Structure formats: C-alpha cells, structure tokens
C-alpha cells in the first residue's frame, strides 16, 4: 500500500469539497418550547438557499445556530467540511469545545442582520475594516482599499465617512453587506435582511443581493421576499413548526407546492 498521507487527506476532504455548510439534526428549545425539531441542511458552494417560513417556524434560530449566536441543544454543524466541536457544559447544555475554532469559523460566515447592527460609534469605512484588520489580521492599507471598492460596489462610497445612524435603512443595510463582503467569507448568512426596511428601500438591497448571487457566492437567506426566493435562489427550504416541511428547486416549488402547508404559506403572501 502506497500510503500517502497528503493524498489521503485530499481524498478525505474532496468527499466534502462541494459542501460549504452541512447541518445535521439541529435541535433547540427555548424553555419548554421546541423551536427546532431536528433540522438538516446541506449547502454546496455557490448555492443560494432561501429559507422560508412563517414567524415562529424557527428559520432565524436555525441560521443563528449555524454561527453559534444561538447554542443548539444537539446536532452538528460543519463549515467547509470542518465540524464545530461541542462539549457538554456543567449545566447539561452544549457549549463550544474550542472558542477559538468558533471565532475562526464565524469569521468565514459573515452575517447580515435584520436590524443592520453596524457599530454605531464607527464610520462606515471603520465598520468595514474593523473585523478584517483585527480578526483576520490583514494589513490596514489593503483593507481600506478593499473597503472603498466594496462601498463603490454597493453604491454608498460617498457615505464612507458617515456614521450609521446618519444614513437611511437601505444605505445601512448595503453598508452591512459590504462589511460582510470585506471578510471574504466562504458563506454569507442573511437574517431577514429587508424586513426592517421601508418598502421603497427594499429594492436597493435586493439588487445588491442578487448581484452577489449572480457572482456565485454561497448564501443562506432567511427572507420573506418571495420574488427573491423564486427568481434568485437556487434552492428553497420551507420550515414549518420547527421542521423542514419541503425543500426543492424554486420554480417547481412555487409552480407546484409540494405540501399543503407551503401552498397555504404562499397563498397568504399572494393575498
């Protein structure tokens, strides 16, 4: 046997190579209420998965369990094939076994929040360079250059020296997307990115997100934007009462809803 460790390692990783995110049997309770009842999800490189569901279906909680902003009670999460190591804490809950590993993985999973969550004491430009320089330890000059380019891309370069509270919601969310891009993330997590916006500002954010999808970024998008789910995403996942109700190709799902729950869900939206 010509055992070559490097080749073996390559073979091992290539089996997972296309899997950017893999979630298995995720469970989470808040008190007595079971929010996630064993959810699994597989995202390959370049996938844009829209996660739909009525409020309380567990879709945001699932997303937040992936980067451990919420601690799942059980289940496993792999990012780029790497398992996030967990341990049992003294009170019987799960806790990260290695917080350094979690921090390193989080830096690869840039998140865009519903309420933007830009750091309000920093200018837009500072918001974009803070994590790349301090977390990824990249040279500041290089980060600044990239930040300016990203701000141009999302169309708010002229606002680069503004503080977030001085900008509209749409501008803040575009800045937040640029902040996420500045991490050169492997996967982008969007948690209802347009839900806090005035209707007339939704379009500018969706346009940026669509352009990211078109350049092949891997994205998990919790959203209520049916148009985005149907036209932009490569896969739609519908959660109902903490379980995966249906998964499929968007055009098919919307043309022929596979379950009565999903049919009901989109019917409510078309009212």
């Amino acid at each position: 046997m010509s055992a070559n460790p490097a080749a073996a390692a390559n073979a091992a990783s290539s089996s997972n190579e296309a899997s950017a995110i893999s979630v298995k049997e995720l469970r989470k309770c808040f008190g007595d209420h079971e929010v996630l009842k064993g959810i699994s999800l597989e995202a390959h490189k370049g996938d844009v998965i829209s996660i739909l569901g009525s409020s309380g279906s567990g879709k945001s909680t699932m997303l937040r369990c992936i980067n451990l902003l919420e601690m799942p009670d059980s289940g496993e999460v792999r990012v780029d094939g790497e398992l996030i190591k967990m341990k049992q804490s003294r009170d019987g809950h799960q806790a990260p076994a290695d917080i350094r590993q979690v921090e390193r993985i989080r830096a690869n999973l840039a998140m865009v929040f519903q309420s933007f969550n830009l750091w309000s004491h920093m200018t837009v430009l500072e918001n974009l360079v803070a994590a790349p320089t301090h977390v990824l330890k990249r040279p500041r000059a290089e980060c600044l250059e990239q930040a300016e380019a990203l701000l141009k891309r999302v169309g708010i370069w002229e606002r680069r020296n503004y503080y977030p509270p001085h900008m509209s919601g749409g501008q803040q969310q575009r800045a937040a997307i640029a902040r996420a891009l500045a991490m050169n993330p492997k996967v982008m997590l969007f948690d209802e990115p347009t839900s806090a916006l005035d209707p007339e500002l939704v379009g500018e954010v969706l346009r940026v997100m669509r352009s990211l999808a078109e350049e092949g970024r891997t994205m998990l998008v919790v959203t209520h934007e049916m148009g985005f789910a149907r036209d932009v995403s490569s896969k739609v996942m519908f959660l109902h009462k903490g379980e995966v109700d249906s998964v499929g190709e968007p055009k098919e799902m919307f043309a022929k809803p596979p379950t009565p729950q999903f049919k009901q869900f989109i019917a409510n939206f078309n009212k």
Partner: protein
Amino acid sequence: MEFLSDLQAQFATAYELLAAGWGVQLLWGIGWTLAVTVVSMLIGAMLGSMVAAAKLSQRGGLRFIGESYTTVFRGEPELLIIYLFYYGGTQVLTGVARSTGSIGSTDILNMPSFLGGVLAVGIISGAYQAEVFRGSFLAIQRGELEAARAYGMSAWLRFRLVIVPQVLRLAVPGLGNVWQLTIKDSALISVTGVAELMLTANKAARSTHHSLLFYTLAGILYLVMTSISTPIFEKAERYTSRSFTRPK
C-alpha cells in the same frame, strides 16, 4: 452709606490678606483639590469598571461582591470612610513596619495623607462610577455586540473595539455628575491634613480671624471649579456622541 464704606473696608482687608500670602496658599489649595479629584477619579474609574463588570457577571459570587461594594460605599458617610482609611491605614502600616523592625516598637507610621485621602475618595467615587458604567453597558445595542461576535471577534476585541468606546460615550454625562461629587468629597480629606482648598481656607480663617471672608472665598472657588467643569463635560459629550447627532 455706612454699609458701603464697610464693604469697601472688607474688600481692602481681603486684598491685604490675599496679597500677604494667603492668595498663593489658596491657589495651592486649588491645585491640591484638583490633584486629589483627578487621582480619585482615576482610582474610581479602575475600581468602578471592575465593580460594574462584577455586577454584570453571570457568576453569583462576583455579583454579590459588586453589589456589596456599591451598597457599602454609597451607603456610608464619606467622612467615616475617610477616617477608616486613614486610621486603618496607619494601623496596618505601623504593624508592618514594627514587625519588620524598620521603626521602633513604640513608633507610629502614619498613613501618608494624600495616599489615604485619594484611596478613600477614589473608592467612594468608584462606587458611583460603577453604577454609571453598568447603566452605560446595559444601554449598548445588543445587536452591535452580537455583530461583533458574529464577525469572529474574541471577548477582548469585543471589549476593546465595541464595549469600551460605547460605554465611554454613554457614560460621559454620568461621569460629569460623579466628577462634581468627587470635587466636593475632596474637601473632606482636609481632615487627614492634605493642604487642599478646604484645609487652606480653614487655616486662613483661624489664623486671621476672618472666617466669613475665607469661607466665602473658598465657596466661590469651589463653585468656579464645578461650573467650569460643566461646559467641559458638555463638550466631551458632544464629541463622544457625534455619531448620533446630525452633522451640521
């Protein structure tokens, strides 16, 4: 008319006394008062931030220590705490010095009055600052802390890049208040013999028998110090909250 000429005589006396050396003494007094206040504020800031962190801790033991600190040092008269520190410190220092043989068995090593004073006032100031810091921390938008976690920042980075700048911004108005309290508390450490403004006014009053004159003068000087600090803190507040006020 008689009243006016009386007032004129008073001013003349005041001028004479101040020119005879009490003026310089009072200026030194102001200097010491400011020194005591600044050092006490700094000690208080260190203690206050630790106590605030303890009170916000998830560990019951730390919370208890934090709660006890603020309860005791806000609940006891300042003068009593100063006496405790001064005499307590003297006893401890004397005990240590006697046991190491650096002083004779009947000698006494006094607590240095400045050190004892600023420790006592700093500890009291810290109790008030702890409440300011705690309130400021609780006022930070949770989402911003969450974003810091989501972007892979370690606890130390979150503290340095997000928590400290925001706590400072939110704490400035409250700290202005504590600064004023601390200026006033500094007058109490005259009892330990630091020649700050209060002690100097006291000395002047006793040795010249012009008590009303010197106490009034000291009162005016304290008021000047506290009122000058108000616009300074307002300016600091405008600067630290610049991201929330509309640009002009």
